[in-house]
Structures are given as structure tokens and as C-alpha cells.
């Protein structure tokens, strides 16, 4: 094995935070590819430029996604990374593992690849960094025989992911872990066979805390919420105060809807005005608890800035119940994909298509009524469209008003 001098990278072995360089070097001791990856990286640090080429199309039989081709311009100098493809493995919901399972994955990966991993990619997959084209089929066969499968890549449904939800969190409004497992099973075809115009990400958060960043990183963001009142345990409120919490300063005055009050003896909440932001509940966990009907808000369209600026997801369905077998949600997802398919140019995310074609076209296609919960404020310009049906409806309403003598705005 080649021995590389790595004065630049060695600097990153110092300091208290765990060092990725130390770990890469450890892998490099027993693996030629990892060893060359270290040498290659040192070269990038020294010259301040990267050498990876655009990915070619590589994959395994029957699958269009899950492997990303990677080659270096410096294949002669660093033969171990001449091919250095990424393999995405579909993570379990909530990233729960046993050490046995992880060892199994790493043993297979040591055998066929560099041994280097990302735990995990920001979409959610367990990312295996660096293997050759020849190794893809045998490594896939071995992973599948142990029950693992590839995740998404390219223009497909990307591997869905979720917050820990009922695995540990008392605030979840539905079973995020089960929903994501169920959707992953349901949409295997869409996950493995890229047939969309671009990527489509689904993320499920159990409440508005959004620990999985769904509102910023998913084309479809599923965010848990509830319809009942916040239950108050007044004794626990007192306890928080006794332990130093300034109830008025930290809770009441930070409530965004100003729907709370505290007079030193009892906390009151005007629940009809609460927008379920979670601030008070997360600060006084023992005193406050949501109640009543549970479900989620569906939002659409978030993405990173390429090409014309980032988007946060927009509310489309204010409330949906989420219970197995999740038929209503699945039907809706299919309608969303159909409309996207009909209207997108290549490499257009759904949020961009909605911007181009208008929210109305989208909502009509998926059968969702316009509702004030979908907007921050109504439009500011007068340049709206009227269909013949719209006008007919307005006219019919006015006829009706003439009959009843009562306006209906």
C-alpha cells in the first residue's frame, strides 16, 4: 500500500472533537481504497480544489436509483479511488439499529468497498462511500440477502425519513415511524425506478418542532398537529414557577398569539386562538399536554436554493388523519405526482412547478378546496384569473340573494 504524507490532514487530528481524518486513516490501514481516499483528500487540501468528476450512470440490475457514479480525474495517481461510487442504503425508520446489524453492514462494505461511511446523508440514507463498478452487483446481492435494500437517488422518490416520534417523544401526533415504513413499502417502484422529472422527498415530523426539518427539506412535509385543547395541570405550573421559571416572561409573553394569561395562581389558555406552535408545551412539558383529535398538516414544495432560490413548504391540507393503512394520504400523493408529471420540465421540483403553473391548478388537480390556512395573506395585486365557472357561480349566488333578500358574500 502507498504511504502518503499528510501534513494538512494531520492538523485535523488535533483538538477535542472526533476526527474524521483519524477514522479515515484507520480504514486506510486495511483498505487500499480508503488509503488512496486519504491521499486524494490531502491533495485537495493542498491545492484547494476538488478532483471528482461528474458522476456517470452506474447501478444494479432492475434498479435505477441507489448508486451514484463517482470517478476522479487523478485515477493514475490514486488508483484506489479511480472508481469511487456511492451506495445509498435505505435506513430503518428513526435510524434504530443493533450493533450486530451495523457490524454486518460494515463487514460487507469492507469486503466490497472502501469501508468508509456517512451515518447518515441528509435525506436519511446510510451512505456507503466508495466502491467500483464491478463490485456493485455482488455487494447488492449480499446486502439484499441480509434484508437491506438500496435507497433513492436521481429523479425518483428519495428515501423517506422521519423524526423519532413515538419511539421516544410524547409530543408526536401520529406514528411517524410506522407511516414512513409504510410509505417506503408502498412506493418501492417510485423509490427504485426513477421516472419523475426530478427528486421527490418526503419527511414526517410528529409535531411543529419539526426535528427532521421537513418544512425546509422535503417536497412533501408531513407535520403532526391536534385539534383539541391544551390540558393544563395547574399544580405542575406552580412547580415550574417554584423551580425558577418566570411564567409570564418566558411563557405568556412569548406566546405568539397572546392567548395565554397567568395571574400568579392559574394559567389560562384561550384554545380557540392558539396556533399550536409548541412553545409553551415544550417549556412546561409536565404541565401542558395537547388533547383531542390527532393528525397532521401537509405542506408542499420545499427545496434548497438551486435554481431560483430556496423554498419552504406551503400548507396545502390543514388537517389529515394519519392511521394505517393511510389510504387518503397515499391517494393524495399519487394525485400530486400525476399533476407534477403532467406539468414539469426536466429537473423541475414540484415547488417550482407550482410557482410556474399556480397553486390553483395544483389544488384543483389534487381535489383540495381553497382555505385561508393555506396562505399568510391574500394576494396584493388585482391581476387574477376568472373562469367562466367562477363567474357563473358568483352570478348564481347573486340570483339566490335576490330570492332570499340576504347577502352571502
Amino acid at each position: 500500500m502507498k504511504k502518503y504524507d499528510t501534513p494538512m490532514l494531520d492538523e485535523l487530528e488535533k483538538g477535542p472533537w472526533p476526527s474524521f481524518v483519524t477514522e479515515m486513516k484507520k480504514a486506510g490501514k486495511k483498505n487500499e481504497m480508503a488509503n488512496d481516499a486519504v491521499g486524494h483528500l490531502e491533495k485537495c487540501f493542498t491545492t484547494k480544489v476538488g478532483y471528482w468528476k461528474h458522476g456517470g450512470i452506474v447501478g444494479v440490475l432492475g434498479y435505477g436509483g441507489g448508486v451514484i457514479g463517482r470517478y476522479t480525474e487523478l485515477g493514475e495517481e490514486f488508483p484506489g479511488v479511480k472508481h469511487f461510487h456511492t451506495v445509498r442504503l435505505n435506513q430503518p425508520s428513526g435510524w434504530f439499529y443493533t450493533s450486530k446489524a451495523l457490524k454486518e453492514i460494515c463487514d460487507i462494505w469492507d469486503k466490497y468497498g472502501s469501508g468508509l461511511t456517512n451515518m447518515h446523508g441528509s435525506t436519511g440514507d446510510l451512505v456507503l462511500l466508495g466502491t467500483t463498478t464491478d463490485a456493485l452487483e455482488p455487494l447488492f446481492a449480499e446486502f439484499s440477502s441480509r434484508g437491506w435494500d438500496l435507497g433513492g437517488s436521481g429523479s425518483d422518490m428519495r428515501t423517506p425519513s422521519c423524526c423519532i416520534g413515538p419511539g421516544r417523544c410524547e409530543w408526536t401526533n401520529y406514528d411517524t415511524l410506522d407511516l414512513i415504513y409504510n410509505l417506503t413499502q408502498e412506493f418501492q417502484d417510485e423509490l427504485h425506478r426513477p421516472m419523475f422529472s426530478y427528486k421527490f422527498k418526503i419527511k414526517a415530523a410528529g409535531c411543529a418542532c419539526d426535528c427532521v426539518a421537513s418544512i425546509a427539506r422535503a417536497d412533501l412535509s408531513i407535520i403532526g398537529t391536534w385539534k383539541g385543547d391544551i390540558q393544563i395541570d395547574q399544580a405542575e405550573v406552580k412547580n415550574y414557577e417554584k423551580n425558577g421559571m418566570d411564567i409570564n416572561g418566558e411563557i405568556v409573553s412569548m406566546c405568539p398569539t397572546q392567548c395565554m394569561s397567568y395571574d400568579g395562581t392559574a394559567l389560562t389558555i384561550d384554545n380557540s386562538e392558539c396556533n399550536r406552535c409548541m412553545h409553551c408545551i415544550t417549556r412546561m412539558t409536565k404541565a401542558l399536554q395537547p388533547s383531542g383529535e390527532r393528525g397532521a398538516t401537509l405542506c408542499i414544495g420545499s427545496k434548497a436554493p438551486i435554481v431560483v432560490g430556496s423554498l419552504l413548504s406551503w400548507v396545502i391540507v390543514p388537517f389529515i388523519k394519519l392511521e394505517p393503512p393511510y389510504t387518503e394520504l397515499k391517494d393524495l400523493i399519487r394525485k400530486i405526482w400525476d399533476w407534477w408529471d403532467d406539468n414539469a420540465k426536466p429537473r423541475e421540483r414540484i415547488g417550482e412547478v407550482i410557482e410556474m403553473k399556480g397553486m390553483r391548478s395544483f389544488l384543483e388537480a389534487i381535489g383540495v378546496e381553497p382555505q385561508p390556512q393555506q396562505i399568510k395573506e391574500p394576494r396584493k395585486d388585482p391581476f387574477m384569473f376568472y373562469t367562466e365557472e367562477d363567474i357563473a357561480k358568483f352570478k348564481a349566488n347573486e340570483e339566490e340573494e335576490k330570492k332570499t333578500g340576504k347577502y352571502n358574500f
Partner: protein
Amino acid sequence: MADKHCDGYLRFTTRNNVEFMVDSADKVQALVDDCNAHGMMPVGGTGAGVTNIVHTQGWVHCHSAATDASGLVKSMMDELMDYFTTKRLPSKLRLAVACCVNMCGAVHCSDIALVAVHTKVPTIAHDNFKNMCELPTVIASCPTRAISPDPAKKSVKINDAKCMYCGNCFTVCPPISIKDPERDGIAIVVGGKVGSLRSAPKFSKLVIPYISNDPPRWPKVVAAVKHIVEVYASHARKHERVGEWIERIGWERFFKLTDINFTFQSIDDFTFMRDTLRTASTFKW
């Protein structure tokens, strides 16, 4: 560690920390002690502090990278370690690094994030263009319509005045080249969040447009981030995220408190201009 303390179970978090779970409070201390004794397993990242930095591939593995992500993360976390192991900040602080403007890691909604940027118009190896690229795709890839056909060269040309170096053309066409060791650098954005607590989720906004790439430890970048964290720590109210604090005091006050030079780059001249310019004479000196 999982075998010894947790019957072999462990999990990873959305921000790439490892979580060991035990089924009784009695087992916690032994686990923490073992992690600390290990030396490379700092325990922290919960509550009002800094947790692990979400980041992208960098020079380790991506063709697009204008910097290395892992190196930046390691350099920052070495400096911010105290905020990882304690809960001394006004609220949680989410850091992120993206090694190019594709921003694979949701940098666009973080309290403080680094985005690596290119700063030069790409060059084109015209001879390879017709063999390796599709003309309509390349033209369509440009968000500012800076690219037009160059029939004489059987290639394309780029209008320098319109190009903002996003690299999207390079992604769809290998003969276009945008990397430049002396000009690629780091920008810093602040004030984003994803949760809806108190205020709606927010994008991060540009405050420092450019710091030169300076591997292996990027000292100026690290110092800038630490400085912003410290100003936030000493000025924000309890529970306020960075973005909420800045919105309360105003961006003009943020620039004053941090003593960061305000530049043209912070004034949006792209898709969000209308929403971001000031339309009232009520600001602070």
C-alpha cells in the same frame, strides 16, 4: 459501547449524533463515564447549545465542492466544544455547512451556516462541448439566462454581467469549469430555523459574503462563527433563536452589535428582492 450498556441497541439522530438508550436511570452514569473515558465520544448536543453540524460531502466525495465540509466542521466543533457539552445558550443553535450552493444539507434554514461559493464566471472547453453536452439543457440550466448559443464554436457563450457563479451549468455539462483555488471561498448566513415555535420557520440570511478558503483549519471562518455565537449568547433573551433575536432587534442592530461590515452582497438582487428591501423610515441608528 452499545453492547456493553444498551443490550446492543443504538440509534442515530436527524443531526447525525449517535444515541445510546438505556432502560433505567441507574445505567446512565456508567455509560456517560465510559463515553468520556473513550476520548473520542463527547457527550452533549441536547438542549440550549450547539449540536452536531449537519454537513455535505466536500472534497471527500463531490465534484461540485468549493471547499471541504468535514474539515470545516471539525475545525468549528473543536472551537465550539464547550457549547456542545453545556446548555448555556439562550436557545438551541443549529449549525450547518454546504460545500457549494446546491446546499445538500438544509443550510438554508440554520441558525448559522457556511456556504461555499464560487466567485468567477465559468470557462468552457469549447472543443468538448458538442460531444458531452446537450445545448438546450445547458441553456435551460442557467437561472439568470446568462447562457446563449455560440454557433461558430458549436458551443455556448456566457454573458459575464449576468452570471452569479451558481455552477448549475457546470453540473449539467462537464466541459464547463468553475472551480478556482484562489477565488472559491466561504459565505456565512444566519438566522434560519425549521421549527414553528413562537415564530414561523425562516431562511438563513447572508451576513458575510466572502472569506478565502484556508484549509486545513479555516481560522477566519471559525473565528467569525464563534464571534456571532458569542454576540448572540450575550444579547438574546432566553428561548430566542438567532433569527428571532435578530428580528426583534433589527438587522441594522445585528450588524452594529457584531461589527460586521455591511456589503452589497447582503442586498438581494435575485428572486427575493421585493420582500427584503425596507419600506419604512423607522429603523435604528
